[in-house]
C-alpha cells in the first residue's frame, strides 16, 4: 500500500510547489513601490480646471495620491475610473486625489472628464509647462506618487494601475489611519 501513497504525496507536493511558484510570479502583491527615503513632496501651486489654484502643501494632514496624466495617454485614461472608485471608497478618510495633466488646456481636460464613467470628482490640475513633472522627476506617463499625511512621498507607481485593487486600498487606508 506504501507505493501509491508515496506517489500521491509526491504529486501533491509538486502541485503545491507549482501553485506557489506561479502565485509568486503571476500575482505579486507589490502594486506600489515603497520610496524608502521618504522625501518631502515639492510644494507646488497649480491651476484647477474648475477654477482657482490648489497648493499641494494645503493638503498636508491627508494622504494624497498625485497622478500625472494626459488625455492622449491610453493607460492614463484606463486608470481614471478606478481612481474615482477609490476616491469614493476613501471618502470618509483623510484622503485626496490630485490628477496633474501634462500640458493640455482646460477645454481638453474638461471635456475628457465628462467622458469618464464614473466621472472624476477629484481635483484635476494643470501643468502647462511641465514644471510639476520636473519637480517630481517624472520621466513618463502615467506616474503616480502617494504622499503620507506629513507630505512625504512614500510610494511610487510607474505605468498604469488599477487603483481600486483591494491591496492598494488596504495600503492607503493604513496610511490614512496612521497618526
Amino acid at each position, binding site marked *: 500500500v506504501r507505493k*501509491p*501513497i508515496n506517489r*500521491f504525496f509526491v504529486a501533491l507536493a509538486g502541485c503545491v510547489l507549482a*501553485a506557489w511558484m506561479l502565485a509568486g510570479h503571476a500575482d*505579486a502583491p507589490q502594486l506600489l*513601490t515603497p520610496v524608502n527615503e521618504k522625501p518631502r513632496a515639492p510644494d507646488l501651486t497649480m491651476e484647477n480646471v474648475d477654477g482657482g489654484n490648489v497648493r499641494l502643501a494645503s493638503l498636508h494632514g491627508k494622504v494624497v495620491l498625485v497622478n500625472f496624466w494626459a488625455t492622449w495617454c491610453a493607460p492614463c485614461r484606463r486608470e481614471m475610473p478606478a481612481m474615482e472608485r477609490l476616491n469614493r471608497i476613501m471618502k470618509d478618510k483623510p484622503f485626496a486625489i490630485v490628477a496633474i495633466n501634462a500640458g*493640455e488646456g482646460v477645454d481638453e481636460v474638461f471635456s475628457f472628464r465628462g467622458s469618464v464613467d464614473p466621472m472624476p470628482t477629484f481635483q484635476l490640475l494643470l501643468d502647462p509647462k511641465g514644471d510639476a513633472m520636473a519637480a517630481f522627476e517624472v520621466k*513618463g*506617463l502615467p506616474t503616480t506618487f502617494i504622499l503620507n499625511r506629513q507630505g512625504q512621498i512614500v510610494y511610487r507607481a510607474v*505605468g498604469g494601475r488599477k487603483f481600486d485593487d483591494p491591496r492598494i486600498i488596504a495600503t492607503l487606508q493604513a496610511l490614512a489611519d496612521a497618526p
Partner: protein
Amino acid sequence: VISGPRAGAPFFNLILVRLLIFCLGVVVNQAAVAQPPQPDNPPPASAKWESARDGLWIQLARLGNDQVKAFLVGRGVPLESAQRFASACVFATVLRNASSRGAIAYDVRDWRINIPGMAPRSIKTREKWMKASTTGELTQAARMGFEWSQLPTTQTLEKEDSMQGMTAYELPPGSRFDLLFSWRTAGRTHHGKIQGVRCAQAD
C-alpha cells in the same frame, strides 16, 4: 476481494490523474493572469513584435504615418514637423518589468538597430528629437505632447511597473531591421534582440 500490496493502486492512480489535471488548470489559469496588458486599438498581429526574457517584456507595435501625423497635429505640432517624425519609422513601444527579482533599468542610448549589410546604429532619443525641433516652432502644448508621447530615454521599472511611448528609427518606409536592446537587473546587464521588425509603408 482485492488484497495485498497493490490493493490501493487503482484508487490512488485515479486521484493522481485528477490532481495532475487540477495542476494543469492552475498553470493555464495563472499563465493567463500573467499576460501583460495590451495597448488600445492594437494593430494587426503581423505588425507587432515582442520579446520576453530575463525580466523584461517589450513590444513594438507599428504605427502608420497618417496615424502618427494625425496624433501630433492634434497636439498642435506643425504639419511639417509632424510629417518629419511620422515618416521616420515609428513604433508604439511598451516595456514592462516582468521580473520577480526586482527593478530593471533601460537606457535607449545603449540600444542599436541592425540593418543587413550595415554597421549597427544608435536610436534617436526623445531629447534629440526635441532638440531637432526649431525653437519657437512648437507651442508649449505641442512641445509637451510631442515630448511626453515618446518613450523616456531612461527609466527604472520596479515590479509591476511599465512604460510606453513612441520610438522612431529614422529609416525609409518599409525598411526591415533588428532591434538590439539591453537592460539591467540585479546588477547584471542583459541583451535582447527582436528580429525582422518592419517599418510602415509610405501612405
